């Protein structure tokens, strides 16, 4: 049943397509990204990187042909504090000192006034290594023949493992009508934000460190700089510049680059700019974790799930960075939006000598959702029922419990989402048409479904630990400002948070602006990750607005209803009493949200976004290329705060998901990405994306900003399995891995007799 739109509260600004707050600057080319900024006396920095996947640094030589007196050189010995980046753990060095653990690891930094002189100097630094055996795959890491991380024990090479158990998995197998087993693999994926990573840093004894950069999480960078420079909080200042895309790729890496630029600034005694070119950005910065997921499922004769045994392994790269939390989210999305009484999930993140994998939109969920949604297709085939029916018979409903025994208390409308997706895509008629036409045509067409959820906000107790603070102030000049560390990088933070503030204060959209993103001015509202900004931070802004109005009514004579000028008069009255007009709120967990980290049980997320996606594909059996010809995305993400921005999030996420499925392949040699150019790492272009049809059902979430849930990551979860399910529908072939390139389809589908070998290409 579709919820009654009358249940959505009436609002003036929330829910309307307000123009992007910083949009005018962007269309005029006036918005300032880090590479557009200069500081007086600024020099440029560059990085000398490891050429080997694992080894001991024996000697560093500064080669001939370069006047090294002109350069400032920084090594690990120049780090005044701890030589470690502060993530969940602190195992990643800021600069490699003795040992390198992956190709492209930073060893040495150079600065020069002329940036064009840097590449030759970087190339002239010769580093000799004593090579150590490298571990380059999950399988090699699992054997522990070489232990590259941790101690030589059971824990060696293992960044993290989770074990989740529900019911009794072992009793069911003997009597199950069907047992379906398969292994699924997903590749690394590059964020490919169009603006590369970049940072400007300054250092002085009096002021400490200041950095300006392209980043998602100002206080992550702040924390690392405090440690690397052994400085107190007030002597580190981080300012976000306009950020040209991030998608998770500017969650942890900016802490590394900011430290590097600031180390050079300290030694050079001048501002330093470091902006990576595309090849360096692709080779040296994080990617999505590759994964291998094994499913073994017991199913009854009608297709009902009886037991699921799921084993997940991810490649974390050389340092732990965010691998434990990515693995956690992968684990918590592995069993899909289905009821199953008996579930066992074992998951492990492994160390390898590759560039550390990191955050990327979806954060582990796209990997495990690819596996479960491909697996549901195999279950449907084993049982002999339709793809829609296998899902419908197992969908979670309100009152059902998830793998972590979280009872879904809110309205849950998966059946309605599926119905809508089937109707909008004309599923039944098209399937019938394709079944009739495919045998006669070289181009085989098909339809595929994925149904899934995405947990909103930090996992488990995460939001409690973050303890975010956010709010609103009113300046003496009569501007209302949103005070957050939540950053804008295209997804719409500025717009939706100002919409929420304006709505809560009964002001106009133009009355509200964002305070500058500067850690010396703003509270820590947490990192801009995990689809948490609209929901968690948005709710803090809504509460701050209502709190400010209540204060003005109690203490400054503001009436129950008021005009704009009465509001600002009351603010001035309040300012005379209190010195400033500011309203901050701290995070409070929704009631009945409990999480047991030890047993991995409870409310994994305060709420979920729910979706059913349908892909329509055409596979050309002459060229073996697969093309997505239409895409239908139906979702329930709570209240839609801005329909234009929300649809833009879905469309952009779907396009990235199409790339994940069919185009984007990271090629590694010795753990170094060697297709590190846009010429040969291929993302979908304007000519490749299908028409994307986006539909929202709205069920406001009581603890999100004006009813919002998370939205940003969800659309990356569904496309890859939907597309491969559609390819199976079109061709009958069960492909279990992504990216799936034409050459992969060729190898599977081209039939050769032994005498008729394919011509060498």
């Amino acid at each position, binding site marked *: 049943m579709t919820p009654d739109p009358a249940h959505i509260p009436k609002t003036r600004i929330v829910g309307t*397509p307000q123009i992007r707050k910083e949009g005018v600057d962007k269309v*005029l080319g006036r918005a300032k990204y880090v590479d557009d900024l200069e500081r007086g006396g600024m020099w440029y920095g560059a990085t000398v990187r490891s050429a080997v996947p694992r080894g001991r640094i024996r000697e560093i030589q500064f080669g001939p042909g370069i006047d090294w007196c002109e350069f400032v050189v920084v090594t690990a010995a120049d780090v005044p504090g701890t030589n470690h980046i502060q993530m969940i753990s602190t195992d990643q060095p800021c600069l490699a000192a003795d040992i390198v653990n992956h190709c492209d690891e930073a060893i040495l930094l150079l600065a020069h006034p002329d940036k064009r002189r840097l590449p030759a100097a970087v190339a002239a630094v010769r580093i000799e290594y004593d090579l150590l055996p490298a571990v380059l795959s999950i399988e090699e890491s699992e054997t522990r023949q070489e232990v590259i991380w941790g101690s030589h024990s059971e824990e060696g090479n293992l960044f993290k493992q989770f074990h989740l158990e529900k019911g009794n998995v072992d009793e069911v197998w003997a009597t199950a009508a069907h047992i379906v087993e398969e292994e699924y693999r997903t590749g690394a994926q590059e964020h490919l934000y169009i603006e590369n990573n970049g940072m400007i840093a300054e250092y002085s004894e009096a002021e400490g460190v200041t950095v300006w950069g392209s980043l998602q999480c100002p206080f992550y960078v702040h924390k690392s700089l405090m440690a690397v420079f052994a400085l107190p909080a007030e002597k580190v200042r981080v300012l976000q510049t306009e950020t040209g*895309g991030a998608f998770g790729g500017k969650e942890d890496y900016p802490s590394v680059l900011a430290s590097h630029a600031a180390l050079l600034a300290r030694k050079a005694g001048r501002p330093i700019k470091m902006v990576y070119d595309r090849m360096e950005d692709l080779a040296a910065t994080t990617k999505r974790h590759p994964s291998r997921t094994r499913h073994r499922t017991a199913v009854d004769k009608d297709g009902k799930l009886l037991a699921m045994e799921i084993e997940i392994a991810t490649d974390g790269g050389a340092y732990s960075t965010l691998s434990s939390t990515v693995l956690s989210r992968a684990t918590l999305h592995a069993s899909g939006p289905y009821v199953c009484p008996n579930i066992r999930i074992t998951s492990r993140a492994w160390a390898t000598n590759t560039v550390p994998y990191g955050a990327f939109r979806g954060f582990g969920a796209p990997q495990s959702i690819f596996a479960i949604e491909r697996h549901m297709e195999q279950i449907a085939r084993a049982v002999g029922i339709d793809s829609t029916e296998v899902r419908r018979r197992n969908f979670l409903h309100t009152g059902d419990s998830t793998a972590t025994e979280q009872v879904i208390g809110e309205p849950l409308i998966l059946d309605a989402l599926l119905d809508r997706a089937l109707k909008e895509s004309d599923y039944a008629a098209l399937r019938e048409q394709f079944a009739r036409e495919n045998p006669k045509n070289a181009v085989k067409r098909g339809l595929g479904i994925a149904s899934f959820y995405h947990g909103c906000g930090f996992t488990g107790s995460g939001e409690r630990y973050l303890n975010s603070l956010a709010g609103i102030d009113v300046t003496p000049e009569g501007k209302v400002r949103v005070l957050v560390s939540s950053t804008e990088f295209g997804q719409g933070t500025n717009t939706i948070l100002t919409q929420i503030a304006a709505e809560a204060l009964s002001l106009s959209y133009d009355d509200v602006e964002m305070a500058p993103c500067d850690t010396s001015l703003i509270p820590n509202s947490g990192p801009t990750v995990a689809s948490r900004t609209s929901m968690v931070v948005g709710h803090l802004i809504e509460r701050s607005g209502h709190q400010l109005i209540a204060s003005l009514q109690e203490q400054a004579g503001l009436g129950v209803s008021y005009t704009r000028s009465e509001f600002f008069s009351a603010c001035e009255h309040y300012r005379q009493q209190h010195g400033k007009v500011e309203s901050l709120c701290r995070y409070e967990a929704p009631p009945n949200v409990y999480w047991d980290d030890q047993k991995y049980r409870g409310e994994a997320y305060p709420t979920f976004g729910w979706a059913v996606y349908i892909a329509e594909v055409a596979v050309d059996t002459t060229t073996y290329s697969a093309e997505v010809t239409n895409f239908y995305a139906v979702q329930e993400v709570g209240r839609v705060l801005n329909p234009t921005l929300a649809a833009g999030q879905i*469309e952009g996420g779907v*396009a990235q998901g199409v790339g994940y499925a069919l185009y984007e392949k990271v090629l590694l040699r010795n753990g170094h990405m060697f297709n590190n150019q846009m010429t040969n790492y291929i993302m979908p272009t304007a000519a490749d994306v299908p028409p994307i049809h986006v539909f929202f059902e709205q069920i406001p979430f009581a603890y999100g900003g004006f009813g919002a849930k998370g939205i940003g990551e969800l659309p990356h979860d569904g496309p890859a399995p939907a597309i491969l399910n559609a390819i199976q529908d079109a061709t009958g072939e069960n492909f279990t891995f992504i990216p799936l390139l034409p050459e992969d389809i060729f190898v599977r589908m081209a039939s050769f007799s032994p005498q008729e070998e394919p011509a060498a290409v």
Partner: protein
Amino acid sequence: MTPCRGHVSFTINGQQTVVDAPPMKRLLDVLREDLGLTGTKEGCGEGECGSCSVRLNGQLVNSCLVPILQASNARIETVEGLAIDAELHPLQKAFLECGGAQCGICTPGMLMAATHLLAHTPNPTMDEIREGLAGNLCRCTGFIKIFESVIAAAVIKGRETHAR
């Protein structure tokens, strides 16, 4: 060794300009460094992403691939020249209203590609739009809102032309 330099003159957004630069300096760097026109962006430096798209003598080019000597006496148009006085270009208005810009880094190049498209094809079909923008990568929007922006701009432009 001092690299050879020379005076190159051209018009930039209608203004006559002379720069003193090495002949092989990229047009992109001349725009950004010598002229302070930072609206034109670098995304890949090898002509793949289109972020640095400008128009040169009415042709759409990747300014990262054009040595400045090739721009001698040329007519160059960049994103900074689209708005006239305070009045946004119809494409700029449409990108704002339709959500064609998200992170904004591809936007200047995309606007120049779209300007070029509409200059030649005032009422483009969806296939013509896809082809016209295929050299410009956007990682945020999935291109859909950009397509809608171009269609909306064509309508606005058509109305303005009609009104004249």
